[in-house]
């Protein structure tokens, strides 16, 4: 049974399925991270979110993150699914599951994965507020791409 480890889906995310993808006999730990839709941001009420992706490239970038993790933390397995379309409050936008023989690597690699998603994966979130709508970019209040340089180093360069 082979299922893709990196997916962009339109339907609700089934967390059990993502955990199953990384479950294996060598693992002594599986960490999961779920990114969910928050109702309040700095006093402003969200009604729902809309996510858009450049799907083929987003899948490639998720796979790139998986590759980076395996280079940095030995013997890890990584599965990431991100949902697109309309999401209501508390629905799961992203699920990351990582297995490793010992827990430290699974914890660390999981945090790395979500940070990298916010840097390199072409997915955008539109907030539909009580009083308007905004495409969100630049969540960290800094310019993402100040020098015009790509956020990943191309191989062979």
């Amino acid at each position, binding site marked *: 049974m082979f299922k893709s480890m990196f997916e962009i889906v339109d339907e609700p995310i089934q967390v059990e399925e993502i955990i199953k993808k990384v479950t294996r006999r060598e693992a002594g730990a599986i960490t999961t991270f779920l*990114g969910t839709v928050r109702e309040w941001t700095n006093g402003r009420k969200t009604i729902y979110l809309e*996510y*858009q*992706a*450049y799907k*083929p*490239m*987003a899948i*490639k970038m998720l796979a790139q993150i998986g590759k980076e993790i395996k280079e940095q933390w030995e013997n890890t397995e990584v599965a990431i699914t*991100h949902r697109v379309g309309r999401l209501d409050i508390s629905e799961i*936008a*992203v699920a990351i599951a990582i297995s490793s023989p010992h827990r430290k690597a699974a914890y660390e690699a999981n945090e790395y994965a*979500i940070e990298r*998603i*916010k*840097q*390199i*994966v*072409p*997915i*955008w*979130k*539109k907030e539909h507020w009580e009083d308007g709508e905004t*495409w*969100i*970019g*630049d*969540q960290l209040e800094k*310019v*993402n*791409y*100040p020098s*015009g*340089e*790509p*956020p*990943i180093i*191309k191989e062979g360069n």
Partner: protein
Amino acid sequence: MITVLLFAQLQEVVGKERIQVDASELTVTELKEKLKSKYNIPQVDQVMTAINEEYALPDDLITSGDIVALIPPVSGG
């Protein structure tokens, strides 16, 4: 012909999901200049660019048939 894909706010500002640019060869910077003069794309200099689904440098060459994506700051997760 070069196809340029637009996403998020860029799609809404321009009112299209894709633009066809009639050119046989140009750099990423040259393409951005061309788009800037023709469409009112906000902060095009801060937008990342991908050529055929790979992040590109400003001096990278785009040739006819390539699919370019303009990628504003991402906000997944």
